[in-house]
């Protein structure tokens, strides 16, 4: 384990996801690595842009292509204390999608009687610029 993890300094990790989910392994691996990071008490946020927005499309069902339907695993992000999932609006719009097409993701706020709160924030390119620049560690998938 790195010295940074052992020293207890919490860094802001941003996982930038720019690839569609089922054609390659990037999406699934990015999600797993992010969950592992979150399990180690790092401050983890997710960013979905370009084809990465397809990862959050509701209604994915891989039965017919015979692969694991890891789209269910995005719903575990909240359990792993990932509380910020950013989706770039322009990437959605260019693909003919809107926020309503995305799977609903929530986290349960332990301090607020397990109240379910939304995880996904659709943001502008300008807001995404800010989110990228404010993160300490950027990981690309």
């Amino acid at each position: 384990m790195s010295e940074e993890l052992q020293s207890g300094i919490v860094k802001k990790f941003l996982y930038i996801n720019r690839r569609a989910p089922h054609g390659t392994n990037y999406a699934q691996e990015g999600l797993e690595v992010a969950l592992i990071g979150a399990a180690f008490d790092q401050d983890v946020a997710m960013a979905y842009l370009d084809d990465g927005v397809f990862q959050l499309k509701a209604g994915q069902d891989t039965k017919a292509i015979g692969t694991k339907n890891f789209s269910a695993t995005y719903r575990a992000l909240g359990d792993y204390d990932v509380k910020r999932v950013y989706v770039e609006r322009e990437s959605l719009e260019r693909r003919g999608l809107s926020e309503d097409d995305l799977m609903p993701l929530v986290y349960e706020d332990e301090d607020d009687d397990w109240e379910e709160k939304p995880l996904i924030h659709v943001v502008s390119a300008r807001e995404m610029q800010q989110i990228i620049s404010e993160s300490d560690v950027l990981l690309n998938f």
Partner: protein
Amino acid sequence: MTLEINGQSFETDEEGYLANLSDWSSELAEAMAQHDGCDLTENHWEVVNFLREYYDEYQIAPAVRVLTKAIGKRLGKDKGNSRYLYELFPYGPAKQACKYAGLPKPTGCV
């Protein structure tokens, strides 16, 4: 690696986690536990069954912190704490219980 139970053999990874989820049965869970010198009580089964449901829903075996929190929510704070869970599963609640549940090693455990 293979696990021999009642004359049948089951494929596992090098740490004893079942290779095929579909091989799992409650008898197999009992046998794996006995192999570790552990008798599965109702309290153990509560956790094992919870993990199987969690995997079914999320396609992932939860890390110990996630498991603890989720158990707390489902079964109450007196069970959703590490002391209780480590007493049940001294080798690590997520790791050991996932093994008996026939799941892969939890995401976020090394």
